[in-house]
């Protein structure tokens, strides 16, 4: 029983990270109809910013956290202006390629500036974890799960109970109608990119003490998060959360009870099954085109 609980805790922890990154995918997709393949690199850049502020400069952790997220907000704005906005009236393919280019650019810029060695980022808490009976609760994973719950609650309140949130929803549902109703669509999209960058940054800073800070950390998480959004239903916020958590649990239990070498395969096997039998995902709407 102890092993099952341990696996469940770890699966939820890593699943929560996938969920946070998946949320970023979904938000940008809903606003712009485009998948942002640099979402993983947002996580990576934020983690490196934390290393610079908290480790290299030795500033207080909370201050470094706020400054890193501030940096991510700026990066999100620049990303919108440089990568999406010039191509906003083109089809989805140029924009996707542009985000892939941005992903490679960000990774290699950090490599050139900081070098290739993985870095250690301390966790938020001094105590590495708590032993609860047979289960060891890594304090960083506890924080990841708690922050994910808080962010989901915040997001629900923001989108459903604030005017700005409703304007963002309106923009994501129908840009043209939103513009006709006087909603500044370009500003709403800018806010979406900034928020997604900050969200990705939070995910990166939370997971960095567990996975270490490296150039590849973003792409490793993003691939699984992308699968999670498809499983949850592309474009659905609840789906991104459930898909991420489910993916974390599936791959952890799959590794423990079936095969560790095929751990990564389970995630993509589930993805293939969903694409084959339920392409709209868990919460998405089935969309069909009539001839």
């Amino acid at each position: 029983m102890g092993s099952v609980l341990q696996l469940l805790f770890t699966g939820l922890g890593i699943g929560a990270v996938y969920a946070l990154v998946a949320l970023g995918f979904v938000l940008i997709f809903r606003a712009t109809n485009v998948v942002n393949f640099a979402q993983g690199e947002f996580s990576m850049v934020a983690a490196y910013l934390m290393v610079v502020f908290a480790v290299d400069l030795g500033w207080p952790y909370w201050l470094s956290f706020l400054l890193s997220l501030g940096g991510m907000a700026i990066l999100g704005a620049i990303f919108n202006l440089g990568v999406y906005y010039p191509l906003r009236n083109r089809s989805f393919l140029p924009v996707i390629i542009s985000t892939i280019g941005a992903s490679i650019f960000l990774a290699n810029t950090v490599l050139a500036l900081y070098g290739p060695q993985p870095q250690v980022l301390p966790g938020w808490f001094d105590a590495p974890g708590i032993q609860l009976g047979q289960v060891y609760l890594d304090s960083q994973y506890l924080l990841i799960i708690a922050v994910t719950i808080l962010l989901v609650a915040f997001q629900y309140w923001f989108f459903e109970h604030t005017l700005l949130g409703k304007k963002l929803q309106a923009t994501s549902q129908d840009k043209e109608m939103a513009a006709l109703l006087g909603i500044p669509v370009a500003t709403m999209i800018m806010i979406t990119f900034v928020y997604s960058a900050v969200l990705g940054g939070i995910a990166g800073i939370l997971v960095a003490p567990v996975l270490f800070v490296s150039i590849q950390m973003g792409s490793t998480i993003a691939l699984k998060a992308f699968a999670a959004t498809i499983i949850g239903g592309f474009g659905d916020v609840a789906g991104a959360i459930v898909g991420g958590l489910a993916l974390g649990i599936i791959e952890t239990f799959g590794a423990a009870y079936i095969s560790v070498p095929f751990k990564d395969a389970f995630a993509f096997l589930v993805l293939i099954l969903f694409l084959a039998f339920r392409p709209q995902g868990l919460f998405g709407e089935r969309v069909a085109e009539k001839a």
Partner: protein
Amino acid sequence: MNLTRRSVTAGLVAGVAMPAVLRSALGQSAPIRIGMVLPVTGPAADSGKYALTGAKIALDRVNKGGGVLSRQVELVTEDDQTTNPGAVLAFSKLAAQSDIVAFLGSIRSTQNHAMAPDILKTAKPVCFGGTDPALTKLGNPWLFRFRPNDSYSGRVIAEYGIETLGKKNWALVHSTDAFGTGGAKALSGSLDKVGAKIAIDQGYPNQSQDFTPVVLAIKSSGADVIGSYFTFDNDLAIFARQLRQLGVTIPWVGSASIIVAGAVKLAGPALYGTYGVADYAVDASPESREFAKLYGAVSNVAPDNYSSWTYDAIGVLCAAIAKAGDTDPDKVRAAILATQGYKGAEGEYNFDQFGDGLHGYNIVRNEKGSIVFDKHIEFTD
């Protein structure tokens, strides 16, 4: 001077021929070029930096001593992106340059396997650091290994764990790539020969983010010692930390990756008290100490096997070219195979017919972050 047809023709011929004559005259002092495939990008980019540093230290030493055959030696590098396709592309770019006389391949066995067919076609010597024993048994005459292969590391891990630590119930943890699979096979073969028990043989895919299932499996197996073959530092560090978090304290004797600078830094206290087979150990010999001194002068990171094998490879290669008196590939190959008693940072090189230069390993211990030399185990069979 009268401009006659004859004088103009003579002038034209001289003008066309002169560059070729100059090239021929200057060709004697054109540098000897050695190609090097290394990771500049990808998960192993940090190790690529160390490999280049080691090679450059050796190169500077050779060139300060007058070079080889009165020519300076130059390194030409290409990024393998830490991937097999990247390594093949990098090698092909270098191989297309006909003036490159020999190459330094990868420390990663999987990449050397990927490059092997092109290496055979290029027919020039390639020095490599990968330890999968199969690499020198491919029937490829151009591959020369500059680290002891895993048939030796497996025997040393088994011998040390059983004879010195007195442990006979083993948990094997290894990457599922060529290095990890080859190493685990070598270790399990050595354990079977001495009648030790393998409680669990657990492979994992590279760049796993979580090792909880592996650690729980080790805990429930009843093993009293761990033998490991990890490829990447971050995987090893995450495993080490989760091992300690879940209360596993049995002795651990790992392949060389357990004591490289990157892993020691990332894992911190989680690796204290562990043992590793190390082809390179600072205090193993006067030559290894000298290399550490040279390395310390140019880097603030401790030297490890990422840099020591490239340092030795350049040294042996240049000595072989000098002995051959020529850069002809067949002559250089013969000279490398004839190299006996060359004392390098990794140990004493005595090349066998298969292209393996080293036949033993050091055992070192992680003493609170410092890597301390324990003993050297050499095989003559």
